[in-house]
């Protein structure tokens, strides 16, 4: 992929209390020749923002913690104002690999589709803990029912959006339910989408930092309330 094309690709990372991991995530992305890394420090009380800036990312700071959905929307708005052609959402805890980005970005860059969603289950790559797999299966079924999109994965934070899709995106579910909201808005937009197999590393750090299974109850509640009340 030529450098000129990569300059239009903005990798947006929402980070909350990720000081131990964020610098290496940013450095790996820059080293893999993705020059535009935007970290939205979502009101962390640790050195997340400073670490990200020192590692070479563009850092935006929420003065109050507003949740991952809110932080991603901030990063996306910023990237669009900076002339992004493709926006990639990437997790801050190191569970995603920069190696997956070319396969994610290319279909959007060449105009085949407007949305590429990363999937843990296409091609059986990576080992997903069984309890998480069961939960994700239920989430996937729910997602099919609410959005009409038959995806193989749910709530995977690795995605690529075209400028067109990103401009239409309006995430109002500030916390974790935004991942379902995003899929709904993709379905509603009618723009072409595709799933691409990605690897998700369930490292000890990511598992300790990540959502517990029971958090799904809250995500579900946020989603239902958000859908009903707008």
């Amino acid at each position, binding site marked *: 992929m030529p450098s000129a094309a990569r300059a239009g690709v903005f990798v947006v990372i929402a980070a909350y209390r990720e000081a131990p991991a964020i610098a290496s995530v940013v450095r790996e992305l820059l080293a893999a020749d993705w020059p535009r890394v935007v970290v*939205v420090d979502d*009101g962390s009380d640790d050195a997340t923002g400073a670490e990200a800036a020192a590692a070479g990312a*563009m*850092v*935006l*700071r*929420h*003065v*109050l913690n*507003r949740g991952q959905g*809110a932080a991603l*929307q*901030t990063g996306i*708005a*910023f990237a669009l*104002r900076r002339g992004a052609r493709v926006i990639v959402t990437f997790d801050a805890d190191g569970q995603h690999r920069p190696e997956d980005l070319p396969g994610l970005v290319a279909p959007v860059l060449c105009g085949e589709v407007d949305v590429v969603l990363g999937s843990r289950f296409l091609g059986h790559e990576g080992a997903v803990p069984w309890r998480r797999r069961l939960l994700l299966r239920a989430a996937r079924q729910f997602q099919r029912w609410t959005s009409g999109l038959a995806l193989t994965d749910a709530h995977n934070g690795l995605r690529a959006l075209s400028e067109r899709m990103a401009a239409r995106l309006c995430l*109002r579910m*500030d916390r974790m339910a935004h991942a379902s909201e995003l899929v709904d808005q993709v379905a509603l937009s009618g723009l072409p989408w595709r799933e691409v197999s990605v690897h998700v590393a369930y490292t000890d750090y990511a598992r300790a930092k990540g959502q517990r299974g029971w958090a799904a109850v809250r995500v579900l509640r946020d989603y239902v309330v958000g859908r009903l*009340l707008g």
Partner: protein
Amino acid sequence: MTTFQLVAIAVCLGMALLTWAVALQRQNVAPRQVLLLWGLLWLAAAAALAVPDAITYLAHRLGIGRGADVLLYLAVLAGCAVAFRLSMAQRRLEQQVTVLVRELAIARSEASATAPTAAPPQTSPDAVEAGP
């Protein structure tokens, strides 16, 4: 009519008039309608105080034994309605806070991009406290 009745009726009527006076000042239709409704509620309270038997009659018609029970159930319903309205208002407020936080984050990053030599804005409360 007891003294309590007289005083309470006066208070309720006063509240009804006050609510309607405020309602007439409002430009927006939705809050005005809500206020008019509250005024009606105060009026109903005044009527119930004036004729306590009316509530007992209403209770019997509804199949509820005592008038006080009708009031209790109505109060619970009103409480639920108020809680719902408050949570709606809270939601709206949260969304507005998010928009503000977002605009502030983007505005600050653009300010620091246009003036790279300027000192970065102090956002951390610790940094402020660290002063003499």
